[in-house]
Every structure is written in C-alpha cells, then in structure tokens.
C-alpha cells in the first residue's frame, strides 16, 4: 500500500522532473489487461529487447513463439502464437500488459507472467528445486519488460 502510494508519488514527480521511479510488480495498474504507463519512464531499447527475447536465460520468448526476425536463434517453439506482426496487432500498452502478466488479458494463458512476484504456488529459487528465498524477484526487470515491449512493437508485417 505504502509502495503503491510512493510509486504514484514518484510518477507524479516524474511529470515534472522527467526521471520516473520504477513501478513495482505489485503496483502495476492493468486496464483490461493493458498497462498504459511505462514501468520505468525510460524508453525501451528494441535491440536489447531482441536479445532478451532470444536468450534462453532471459525472456526465452522463442521457447514457445516463432519469430522470423530471430531466425538466427536456433529452435523456436510452437506453443504460443507466432510473433510476426505483433507490433501491428497490439498497441504498446497491450504489449506491456501481455509481457508483464498475460493472464490478466487471457485468463488461462500458459504464458508465464514476467513481471509478477506474488500469488504463486510453491515458488522456487530459480531452477534449483528449493523454496524461494528473499532474493525472489520477477522473471524480468522493469527495464527488460520495456525493452521487450519496444522490440515487439517493431515486429510489423
């Protein structure tokens, strides 16, 4: 509660200073699954987002989605929809909402929620099989979410 309040304060301040504070995973505001406000106030870097989308230990988007633009990365999955044209089909706010927590827009989606820290069943400490400890954080950082969103926005048919 206090954190939300601080985040709002920070956002308000940012409109004057231009230097926003990061929105915590628990403070993200979803409207019909979309997230209007940048999580960091810093524009996403599509080149960085491309790296995150293809990297196995980061976003690993290609584990489930095919992306023609990432043809240099071997082995694309076919679990989720192809991402070609994602930038035509979705607005930036929708993309941000889907990457941060797709289950708000699509209730039964298999897609992991990349910017969420609460509400898990038996959360673990990464891939160790041990219980989560106080280092537990979201799968991607706020800026990494922004980078991926910026990259997806470039995927036009």
């Amino acid at each position, binding site marked *: 509660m206090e954190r939300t309040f601080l985040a709002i304060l920070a956002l308000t301040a940012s409109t004057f200073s231009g230097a926003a504070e990061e929105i915590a995973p628990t403070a993200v505001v979803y409207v019909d699954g979309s997230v209007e406000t940048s999580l960091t106030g810093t524009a996403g870097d599509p080149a960085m987002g491309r790296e995150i989308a293809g990297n196995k230990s980061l976003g690993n988007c290609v584990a489930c989605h*095919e992306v023609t633009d990432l043809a240099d990365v071997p082995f694309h999955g*076919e679990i989720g929809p192809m991402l070609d044209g994602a930038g035509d089909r979705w607005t930036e706010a929708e993309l941000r909402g889907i990457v941060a927590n797709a289950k708000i827009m699509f209730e039964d989606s298999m897609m992991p929620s990349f910017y969420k820290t609460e509400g898990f069943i038996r959360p673990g400490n990464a891939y160790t099989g041990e219980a989560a400890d106080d280092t537990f954080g979201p799968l991607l950082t706020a800026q990494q979410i922004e980078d991926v969103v910026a990259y997806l926005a470039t995927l036009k048919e």
Partner: protein
Amino acid sequence: MKIWTGALLAGALTALPLSAEPVEDTLILNEDITLVTRTAAPDHLSDVMDEVISGWHFRGTETRAMQADDFDNPGMIFVEQAEEVWNTVDGSEGKSCASCHEGSETMAGVRPVYPKYNEAAGEVRTLEMQINDCRENRMGAEKWKYTGGDMVNMTALLASVSRGMPVNVAIDGPAQSTWEAGKELYYTRTGQLELACSNCHEDNYGNMIRADHLSQGQINGFPVYRLKNTKLNAAHARFKGCIRDTRAETYSPGSPEFIALELYVASRGNGLSVEGPSIRN
C-alpha cells in the same frame, strides 16, 4: 493442418524436423512382441483426449530402434544387474527375492497394476514401497534409497518381465481419494512459471517447446534410460525435474504427493503396454 504449417515454418527457420506429430511406427520388441503404444484413452480421460500415446512415438528413429532390441537397449544392462541381486541373499533372514518369489519372470503382471492400494497397510503403495517392505520385513535387509541405483534397477527388472502387458491401475474403491489428489496436482500450476503437467502434456503434446518435442508425459516406459544422463531414471525423479523446471519448490521422491501423482499419471496410460526400461532423450 495448422500444426503442420507451423512446423513447416519452424523447419524453414530452424532446420527442425518437418512434422512435430507423433511418428507413425510400430514397436516390436525383439522381433517378437508387438507393444501397444497408441490406444483409445481410458474413460476417465474421454473429455480431454481420444487417444493415449507412448512417449516412444515422440522420439527419433534411432532412439526408437534402440528400444526395440534388448541387445541395443542400454537399460537392459541394469536389468541384468538387478537379476543378480534378485538371486542374492541379503539381510538377517537369509533370504533373496527368489527365496519367496522364485524366478523374476513370476513377477509378470505386477508392474502394470502399481501403484496399488495395500489392504493391510491401508495405503496406496508404489512398487518401490513394496520392494522396501519386502526388504525390511521379509528379508531383514536395509531399505533402499527411493530413487537410488539398486531400487531403480530392481524396478527395471520388474517392468521388463511385464513388457507387453497393459498398464491397468485401479482408480476407484480405496485408491480413489489418492487418485483424486494426484489429479489435483496434475492440474495445479506450480512455481514462478505457473505450469501444470497439463499445460505441456495435455494441451500441447506434439508441439515443440524450443528444441523439445512435448509428449503426453506417459510413464508406461519407466524406469527410463535417458540419453541425456546415460542412466535409468525413476518416475519420481522425472516428476521432480519437471516441477523444478516450473521454477517451483519440488516435492520429494516417495512423498505422498508424488505417490498420488504417480497413480494418476499411470492411470492416464491405462491400456498402453508396459515398456520399461524404455529409451528417451
């Protein structure tokens, strides 16, 4: 059709096999016994799938061939080791397995019905639990570690003598509450990735997840010789690995949760032939 087109695109992009469908093939063991690797889904699955398919159909040509011949199947080396143990006296009672059961071939028909409710104990027991019960209470021997080498080898021997017989675990009567608990777990989305068994093995079998071809996650072929770690792997060890990969705190092999899950997952393969020790990636 959609999957086929998708696979074509993936193939063009990444040199994947052209189709991600389970392979059409017949598993004939030692040019003798034809195993049932695809069959009508058991009644309790009729609302989610029509057919149950062994993981054998989701593996490559060489892997499938390796399992068809006992001389090529590395899992059979461990079966031979267990055969020796079967006939070796251990413990304070001066008994081997053979002292009571005679030849290991007399155990044909046991693997297909486990996990099974044990009336005297008042609980559902896995084959591992029953083996350890024999060791402790009949032989006066030390219990084996649940997924240790001795144990997994012995389960491979017991599976091997039942190859070709259909999996047929009971899910009603006194086993029902355990089965329900296993079903609950099967559909529970665990860990930071919030993945249930069903997300991959019911909703997406046949699809590629990165370089892996998702199967139905059937356990009729356990224990499994995995090319990845070149040893026999117990079903509970595989369950643990899967749940770990959802970024979750896992359950332990031999835990009530995994006993229940094993009964439920085994029941999804009722009708498929016992294949263990099978070969998988």
